[in-house]
């Protein structure tokens, strides 16, 4: 039904929400038979240029255990100035300021088009943003110089009132005291010994706040520590001195002998950074930005020893339980990450090196706090410089896209409970009537904390239908969910964004076709993929694939139309037709296949997958492929070896790479120089067209993707060849008859074979 596609799209544009099912099965039993759980992707701060925030506090339900926000779903008695909460049915009095409302004079939050609305609330005095640079000095000269310049440049991008600090590390860790006069001082710590937060604060001479600050509660004016601390100073005061200080940074002076790695104390450096902020600025927006050029080799959190002959752990080592430092290092960074999240701060990791840097062990620092993870080859590359610049990109109002200290609370109507969330967040352990005992992802709570987020940050939230089979749903009954996100805007205002949505219940026995028609296969694919990747972090790879396959088979058994034991009769309706393809590509993706990737690379890909919005996530699962030819405008083509033709140029977007591939004939024409001849000007245009389109993507994506410009027969063509469905391989080359496209040298299963097996299993009466 075309109308559901529109419905889905309109809802996403307005509310930033995509549900796997848009008509909900009305009983617990039926919901489990749907195979794909009832779940949604939520982009809490989706950019809404048409949504001006309102400058007052939201009206809340007065029941202490509810406190839902007034929304268009609430029944209103304008005469008596009462409203009924749609979640708990409590009747509430409107506040005095609402005395003038009526049917024709509604406040914004009651209007249907404001199902998503943003409030600006004044709570205490605004606190500035904080940026603490933690810089590895064990870099090559060229890299260190490039990094220094990027950091100096960033001082021009930071807001003048923001606080900035600097910690450098190598064998030792140096905390730089920023002052405007006299000789620059620093406090030096040994890189081998971890310290508690208190020890760090004592050694740095910091006074602890007298009143212990509760997490989530903003500081009252009288509790605030003095804004200016010796180690964190406002940019407008310290920029000249800090520019000089950065300019004078030297490589770590400790000599590195032949056959050794530099001694790098990343674990202690991060620990000190976390402790410093904990003691001075808890519960305010802060980024700890770690810049590292190699693995930690010393102290707590070390990932590999300093002997080059012992390589850093590979997946093979991990499988054979041969990664000596992994468990201890991961635990060290997990503890730091949890503390950082509790303090409302985030940790970014910018790792540039030719070998691994320990992203596997350190990934929780970015994943739990919402911080960025960037992986490159060198700081002297456009990949790093542009990605880093884009951290400070601004929106149409000239304000940073980053937001801090968000708490997300989810409320459901009583037929639903919350199983959990998957995304860049931590649990706030908030129990309540909405919380389900069956956990999926980060569960056992209806509130999560996202310490850093931007307009594309997306959480997956999983629900459970708890309505009993024999409990009737009233005709036209709807279930409702409310998402309340409180956060600190980059302009330091505190804001609350409220999204309230409802969907119809339907009896699965008699109205399955409605439920089927309202299935969102794209959202479902991403939601199942997030579950799969979440499981892959703790389970064995083959188990996850088996689980994914089983779910796919069950889904096809439930919703396919077929005659038993007749695979050729199998059909799927339109709303399911792309789903098996998504699952096929997901199984081959770097999120579930660790072969050919280092543990760091897998961690990097998974990090980005767990936080992107639906469109980008789908690109990661099944890359986009466009074909350019003389016969018309560029068109999307199947991600299939049959699309690789001699006279075509292909543009592939995997999210992490942009690949431009010249077919064999195109490449030959280019070598012959036809593009320089005026009579073949259209060939010149043809060559340019994909470059222009690629540029469009490269100009805005965060993080900056790699750029591969390759051709038939070139080694870099492997980026394309490994992604396309290998419908033609060296095994079946002569079985096809008419050949088209390029055969791929692989033993991987093709989509055709996959679908054949799937159909056989789905229709089998033995399953």
């Amino acid at each position, binding site marked *: 039904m075309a109308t559901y596609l529109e419905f889905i799209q309109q809802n996403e544009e307005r509310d930033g929400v995509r549900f796997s099912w848009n008509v909900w099965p009305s009983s617990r039993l039926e919901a489990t038979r749907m195979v794909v759980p009832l779940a949604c992707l939520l982009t809490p701060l989706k950019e809404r240029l048409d949504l001006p925030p309102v400058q007052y506090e939201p009206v809340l339900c007065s029941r202490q255990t509810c406190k839902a926000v007034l929304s268009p779903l609430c029944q209103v008695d304008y005469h008596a100035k009462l409203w009924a909460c749609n979640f708990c049915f409590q009747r509430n009095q409107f506040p005095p300021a609402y005395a003038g409302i009526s049917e024709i004079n509604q406040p914004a939050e009651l209007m249907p088009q404001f199902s998503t609305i943003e409030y600006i609330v004044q709570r205490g005095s605004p606190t500035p943003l904080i940026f603490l640079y933690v810089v590895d000095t064990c870099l090559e000269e060229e890299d260190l110089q490039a990094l220094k310049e990027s950091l*100096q*440049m960033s001082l*021009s991008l930071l807001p*003048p009132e923001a606080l900035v600090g600097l910690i450098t590390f190598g064998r030792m860790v140096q905390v730089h005291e920023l002052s*405007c006069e006299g000789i620059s001082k620093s406090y030096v710590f040994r890189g081998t010994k971890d310290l508690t937060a208190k020890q760090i604060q004592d050694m740095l001479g910091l006074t602890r706040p007298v009143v212990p600050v509760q997490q989530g509660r903003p500081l009252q004016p009288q509790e605030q520590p003095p804004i200016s601390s010796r180690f964190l100073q406002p940019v407008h005061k310290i*920029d*000249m001195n800090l*520019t000089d200080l950065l300019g004078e940074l030297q490589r770590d002076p400790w000599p590195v002998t032949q056959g050794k790695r530099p001694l790098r104390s990343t674990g202690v450096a991060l620990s000190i950074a976390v402790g410093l902020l904990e003691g001075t600025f808890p519960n305010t927006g802060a980024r700890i930005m770690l810049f590292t050029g190699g693995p930690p080799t010393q102290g707590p959190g070390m990932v590999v020893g300093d002997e080059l002959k012992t390589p850093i752990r590979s997946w093979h080592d991990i499988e054979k339980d041969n990664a000596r430092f992994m468990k201890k290092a991961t635990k060290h960074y997990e503890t730091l990450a949890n503390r950082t999240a509790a303090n409302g701060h985030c940790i970014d990791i910018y790792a540039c090196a030719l070998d691994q840097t320990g992203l596997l062990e350190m990934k929780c620092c970015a994943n739990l706090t919402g911080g960025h993870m960037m992986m490159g*080859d*060198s700081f002297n*590359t*456009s*990949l790093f410089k*542009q990605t880093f*610049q884009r951290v400070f*990109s*601004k929106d149409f109002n000239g304000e940073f896209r980053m937001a801090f200290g968000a708490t997300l609370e989810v409320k459901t109507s009583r037929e639903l409970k919350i199983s959990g969330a998957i995304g860049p967040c931590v649990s706030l352990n908030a129990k309540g009537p909405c919380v389900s005992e069956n956990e999926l992802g980060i569960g056992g709570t209806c509130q999560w904390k996202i310490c850093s987020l931007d307009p594309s940050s997306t959480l997956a939230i999983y629900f459970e239908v708890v309505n009993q089979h024999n409990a009737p749903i009233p005709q036209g009954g709807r279930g409702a969910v409310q998402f309340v996100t409180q956060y600190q805007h980059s302009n330091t205002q505190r804001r609350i964004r409220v999204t309230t949505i409802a969907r119809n219940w339907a009896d699965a026995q008699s109205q399955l076709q409605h439920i089927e028609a309202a299935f969102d296969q794209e959202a479902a694919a991403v939601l199942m993929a997030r579950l799969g990747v979440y499981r892959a972090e703790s389970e064995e790879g083959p188990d996850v694939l088996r689980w994914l396959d089983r779910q796919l088979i069950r889904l096809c058994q439930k919703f396919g139309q077929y005659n038993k034991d007749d695979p050729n009769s*199998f*059909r*799927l309706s339109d709303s399911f037709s792309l789903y*098996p*393809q998504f699952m096929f590509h997901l199984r081959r993706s770097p999120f579930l296949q660790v072969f050919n990737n280092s543990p760091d690379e897998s961690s990097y890909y998974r990090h980005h997958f767990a936080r992107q919005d639906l469109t980008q996530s789908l690109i990661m699962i*099944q890359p986009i492929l*466009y074909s350019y030819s*003389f*016969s*018309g405008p*560029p068109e*999307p083509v*199947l991600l299939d070896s049959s699309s690789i*033709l*001699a*006279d075509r140029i292909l*543009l592939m*977007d995997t999210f992490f790479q942009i690949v431009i591939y010249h077919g064999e*004939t195109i490449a*030959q*024409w280019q070598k012959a120089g036809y593009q320089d001849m005026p*009579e*073949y000007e*259209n*060939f010149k245009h*043809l060559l340019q067209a994909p470059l*222009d*389109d690629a*540029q*469009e*993507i*490269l*100009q805005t994506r965060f993080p*900056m993707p*790699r*750029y*591969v410009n390759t051709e038939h027969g070139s080694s870099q063509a492997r980026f394309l060849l490994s992604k396309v469905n290998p419908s033609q391989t060296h095994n079946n080359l002569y079985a*096809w008859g*008419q*050949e088209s496209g390029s055969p791929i040298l692989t033993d991987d299963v093709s*989509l*055709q074979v996959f*679908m054949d097996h799937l159909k056989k299993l789905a229709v089998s009466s033995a399953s």
Partner: protein
Amino acid sequence: MLGCDVAMAELYVKPGNKERGWNDPPQFSYGLQIQCGGPKRPPLTRRVPGPAAGAPQALTPANSAPPAVPAALASKPVGLPPLAVVSPALRPDAAKQVVSLAEEECEVKVEDVLAPLNETLSMCRNTVQKQVCDDISRRLAVFRELWLQGKLSAPVRKRMNILVQEVQRQHWDVADEIHRSLMVDHVNEVSQWMVGIKRLIAEARNLPPGDLVVNDEQGAGAQPAEEAL
């Protein structure tokens, strides 16, 4: 917004650093990165539905003779591309302007650029800390040295000239944006001294109105700082 004004910002794309990262993406200038307007193409996110589940596999017919033999084709004639008879039916687009970097000539003299800056600095000396003013002065001297030694490229000199004119007109936001674009696009040339210019703009814009003697072509009177949009 500033990105759309060619005079204020450079718009260029440079290739990435292939020596350090062999698939390093191209580098966009600051002006291109903050561009808000410009023709927006529809995003490339469409997919072709695969073979419908259950339908027989349909092969797309090859357009050209399928080159089944991957032999050395250099010796084999491969045919010519089609002639440019009609305008190509490709996506209409506005090609990004590529400003040639090195070939621009810059006739500006360093003293013409420095004089207004030093003047602005002396206006600040009443209210701003001596140490800060001395620091700015020191960096202006470094700037002058580098200019005279020919170590500053033409785009940098040219844009500094524009920046200084905006400072004279008290267009603080515009001047600030130019400083930012220079820091992003030419950090290795400007990092030592640009922070002094940045500070000078920040301090000058906060001066009490009496201190700032207007020195612009548009007329007398202490006008409030114009914010260009």
